[in-house]
């Protein structure tokens, strides 16, 4: 029987060195047009598990579990783990897992609302953080 995902994470944390990603994901949620652009930062232990393989469940189990009511059994904790991913594949997986589908799947507008960028492209000056938007010229 497949171990619970949380147990696999415990075991992985004891043997895998954390990996800080060289990418960040910028996104704007079309359901909150006045909100600033959000920045998704991958967790280094999660990235290590993604690169190692044999720990994380298939992404489609997370997507199906979105429709499962709270308190009901979820599919992802006991799903058979998938193999190793590249860092780029891991970021795509994370986009689908941690960003609402209305951003990466359902949006039909012309504006670029999701962009995967190297860490150095995220401004370190946060003086105007709540005014950040994705640069449409660079995103084109």
């Amino acid at each position: 029987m497949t171990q619970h995902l949380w147990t696999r994470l415990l075991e992985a944390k004891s043997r895998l060195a954390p990996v800080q990603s060289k990418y960040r994901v910028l996104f704007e949620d079309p359901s909150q047009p006045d909100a600033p652009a959000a920045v998704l930062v991958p967790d280094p232990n999660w990235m290590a598990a993604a690169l190692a393989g044999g720990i994380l469940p298939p992404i489609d189990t997370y997507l199906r579990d979105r429709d499962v009511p709270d308190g009901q059994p979820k599919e992802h904790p006991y799903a058979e783990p998938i193999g190793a991913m590249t860092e780029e594949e891991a970021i795509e997986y994370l986009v689908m897992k941690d960003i609402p589908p209305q951003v990466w799947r359902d949006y039909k507008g012309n504006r670029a609302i999701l962009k995967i960028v190297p860490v150095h492209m995220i401004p370190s000056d946060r003086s105007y953080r709540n005014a950040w938007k994705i640069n449409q010229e660079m995103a084109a």
Partner: protein
Amino acid sequence: MSNLVVSNISDGSTSVGTGYVVNGSAKVFAASDTQGTVVYGFNVSGVVDDGIGQRTFNFISALADTTYSAVSTPFASTGMTHAISGRTTTSASTDTDTNSGTSADRGVLLAIHGDLA
């Protein structure tokens, strides 16, 4: 990996069921810096920097329901107030303010106890 299978842990006079130990441990913990970078953590896939003082921590293994206990505290800063501003079975959001109520970027420590899905 080898497993030690026991139903109770004892110091010779007092014993406790291993279920209490396993179920009583934190299911999620994380520390993120002012930029949202996770310094250390467990059962977190990513942190979303939603704006000044706003963070969302996404879980790898979901909680069973939203009645879990979540605690957020400042990470190496004082004079701040932290609050859990949102919770689902797959994420928890935190809000950091100065004592005067202005949103502020500071590191965040998060710990969650509850039942896993």
